[in-house]
């Protein structure tokens, strides 16, 4: 059975038709697929079929461990978003971007394709000053209406500065990781293992935290 019904398919096609440049998705799964991996596999397959501007490469966490290392993928299912020239956008989704997260996923595709609103110059200036590696993990649940806001903000930083890597992490699929970071409310944004923010915060709050590192 397809994941997207007729109505959603039509809406998704319309949204994806606004993509400007090509975008490539690299999907990581594993040999013996977990249920979420199977669903995520179907999700990426169906989605890639909805636009000529989207291409998909499916890799295996174990067999393609060099690629996994290159893209800093340490768990599955994972989706890495690449720009049209094949460079890494810094944007990743761990777990299926279902529920409300479909919105952050589409935002990422449009943004990486080049359809994105410019940021205020003052914010842009602060982002360009980031000169050391920053790893942002945004923990979400698919039923959380506020979470895509936090994910889109983190992904935007990744897109604007190549020192930043930003992950959406679907908490229900990665329970040990959620426990490790003591996630008990979402969205929760963890920055470089050390700093965290609770709730959907504006981009300036994220920058404040990054500047403290």
């Amino acid at each position, binding site marked *: 059975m397809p994941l997207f019904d007729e109505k959603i398919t039509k809406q998704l096609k319309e949204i994806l038709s606004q993509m400007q440049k090509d975008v490539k998705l690299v999907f990581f799964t594993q040999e013996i697929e977990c249920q979420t991996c199977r669903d995520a596999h179907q999700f990426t397959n169906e989605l890639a079929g909805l636009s000529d501007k989207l291409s998909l490469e499916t890799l295996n966490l174990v067999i393609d461990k060099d690629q996994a290392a290159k893209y800093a993928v340490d768990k599955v299912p994972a989706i890495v978003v690449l720009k049209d020239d094949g460079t890494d956008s810094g944007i990743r989704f761990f777990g299926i971007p279902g529920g409300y997260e479909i919105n952050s996923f589409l935002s990422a595709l449009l943004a990486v394709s080049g359809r994105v609103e410019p940021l205020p110059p003052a914010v842009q200036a602060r982002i360009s000053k980031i000169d050391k590696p920053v790893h942002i993990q945004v923990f979400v649940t698919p*039923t959380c209406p506020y979470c895509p806001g936090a994910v889109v903000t983190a992904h935007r930083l990744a897109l604007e500065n190549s020192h930043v890597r930003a992950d959406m992490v679907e908490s229900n699929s990665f329970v040990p990781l959620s426990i490790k970071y003591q996630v008990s409310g979402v969205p929760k944004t963890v920055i470089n293992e050390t700093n965290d923010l609770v709730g959907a915060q504006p981009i300036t709050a994220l920058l404040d935290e990054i500047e403290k590192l």
Partner: protein
Amino acid sequence: MEFNLSAGLFVAEQNFLPVESQTLYDVLIIGGGPAGMTAAVYTLRKGLSTALVTGNVGGQMTETAGIENYLGYRYINGNELVDKFREQVMQFGIAFESSQKVQRLEPGPVHQVTLEDGRVLRAKTVIIASGKQSKRLNIPGEKELAGHGVAYCAICDAPFYADKTVIVVGGGNSGLGAAIDLAKIATHVTLVQRRDRLTGDQILIDKLAAYDNVRILLEHEPREIRGDGHVERVLIADKKTGEEQELPADGIFVEVGLLPNSQFARGVVEMNEYNEIWVDCFCRTRVPGIFAAGDVTTVPYKQIIIACGEGAKAALTAADYIQNQK
């Protein structure tokens, strides 16, 4: 698998113009929930120059999974209805800005509205449609432990409380809903209600009664939330005897109702004891040229269909006001 797609987010906003400080608008609408969006459709159809500034598009509708009492739709997902409203506003040229909040309102022959980022907008009339947001308990420990066991969104955070012990505060529909969701997965749920009875719908009360891991404490209230980095215990008081007890808990879900977003209008327009803006049946406040509509007002019953009706009324009253000024 479900997808809560907000298709409207991705529609090119060709008709949304930037809000400008140099323009004197006929109408400035504060808030983009059902009341504000309906008001916009009415003022724009009257040909009035309109600006709308809002924290988010859709207001409380974006937090609502399913709506079954907005006529024309037997059932519609909250986000879908937001998209439909937004599309209808978008057919007109409207000065529009979201992710922006109004900080101050100064009345005068020309009303001045200061935004969070310091910009000042000017308008002949203002429609306040800033709605409501979840209320806090305002007890020690709440702020410090927010997101660390103190939760305000049961649909978001319930999954983290599987096999845990939780407290739900509030015996209205949202408290009952949260308690039901949590009872399915938590070891134990204590529902704490200030009043002497539950105030939510009977259907939900019956549903909750079917779980044997739920205890209901009526006429009790939380006084303090304790824990080292995470909620561990909650101090609960019996309102009749004043007796306090400390309950162990991994989480506390706060569902104690809503607070009007009226701070920026304090001292400007009259409000009742709950900080709802007083309006007459024309949506007039006591300040000429300032109108209010929807959940932020004293109008009884907070519902989408009512907020829409009030928004329409406020817009028509504003249009008449401008007409009479000429």
